[in-house]
């Protein structure tokens, strides 16, 4: 790891000010991606601004179906929240299967979505749940937030403060983890919303990161069952291909995981 300067932010304003002092400064949330990347010298921020002590960015609140998760809330906290388990069980299941227990104790929802790894779990969950990402300056819909592989709508120095979700009628998540890395080789989050609409978001498979699958959404809006997906074709032309799986294999996984997610949603 190259030398860096550590700062501990005490508030959102403090964090934003600290990061603005250098072009090469970065926010440090749980650090479970950023620190390994720095250790490999693939990233070399001049300054790190630690967000783990910003009280306004922590915690979960649920009232009347409105869910707010602070950006510095860890995966373990989301997975272990009885309120999330009740209001949005698919999201609790998703959080409980990110990385391993030690990673879940440190990694945060805000860090995960700001990184937008194409195989990360949260982007699929938030896109299917039609979440709103709240930053220090504005609110962004998940559809607009995730703009491509490791790319988001965040401006330089803009900080994710919280995620807001309206509890869906039902939701489920299923992923096929890579047997070695445990990252999603394909993960599908399915959510049926209060207005009857259905959103299906896929991670780990798209060559440009998380995406929605409209044909599946339409099929499930008419008939919310795994069988409804049997006749839906999944085009493999924009899917990733690597040593772990061809794009055709991933296309099949998209359908299988979507069916499992629908079954999990109940």
């Amino acid at each position: 790891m190259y030398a860096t300067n550590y700062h501990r932010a005490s508030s959102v304003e403090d964090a934003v000010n600290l990061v603005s002092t250098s072009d090469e400064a970065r926010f440090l949330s749980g650090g479970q991606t950023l620190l390994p990347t720095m250790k490999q010298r693939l990233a070399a921020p001049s300054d790190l601004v630690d967000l783990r002590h910003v009280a306004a960015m922590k915690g979960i609140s649920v009232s009347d179906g409105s869910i707010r998760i602070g950006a510095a809330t860890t995966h373990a906290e989301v997975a272990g929240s009885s309120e999330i388990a009740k209001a949005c069980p698919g999201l609790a299941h998703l959080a409980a299967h990110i990385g391993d227990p030690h990673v879940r104790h440190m990694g945060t929802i805000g860090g995960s979505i700001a990184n937008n790894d194409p195989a990360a779990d949260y982007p699929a969950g938030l896109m299917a749940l039609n979440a709103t990402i709240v930053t220090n300056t504005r609110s962004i819909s998940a559809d607009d937030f995730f703009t491509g592989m490791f790319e988001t709508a965040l401006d330089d120095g803009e900080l994710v403060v919280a995620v807001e979700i309206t509890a869906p009628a039902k939701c489920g998540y299923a992923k096929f983890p890579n047997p070695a890395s445990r990252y999603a080789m394909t993960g599908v989050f399915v959510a049926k919303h209060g207005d009857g609409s259905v959103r299906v978001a896929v991670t780990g498979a798209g060559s440009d990161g998380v995406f929605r699958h409209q044909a599946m959404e339409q099929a499930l809006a008419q008939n919310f069952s795994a069988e409804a997906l049997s006749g839906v074709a999944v085009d493999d032309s924009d899917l990733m291909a690597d040593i772990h799986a061809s794009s055709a294999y991933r296309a099949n996984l998209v359908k299988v995981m979507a069916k499992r997610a629908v079954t999990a949603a109940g």
Partner: protein
Amino acid sequence: MTTVSMTVNGRTVSGQCEDRTLLVQFIRENLGLTGTHVGCDTSQCGACVVHVDGKAVKSCTMLAAQANGSEVMTIEGLASGGDLHPVQAAFREHHGLQCGFCTPGMIMSAVDMINRYGGQLDEKTVRAELEGNICRCTGYHNIVKAILDAASKMGDGARVAAE
């Protein structure tokens, strides 16, 4: 350079280190507590697991500066006097180690999962919870046996204490 202070195994310690110093380096090199191991150094193997503020974390994936002001527990802090911690005793009893390199991380992970699940642990849960700890010798079987035995004994102990 920065001054970092924390409580390690109940003792207040402080030391000078670079901002980029990893917690595991601080523990091993500044404090001389070499029970915490560096295995893969890429956040996968779990040989470096310690508890920070009561939660198991990979100390190779945390800066010492991030742990400034925290309470840290390492493998050296588990035994009380000459008595092994129940998880340590169970690993010895069930031959839960061969070369021993992964053992400190395995035991710190085991204590963390027993803390979180209490007597609710079963084999499937233990195996899933060990996802972040790699052992290249044992095939995990005796590690799982040791953790289940320790969990049941610690559960009994907790009940006795309550009665």
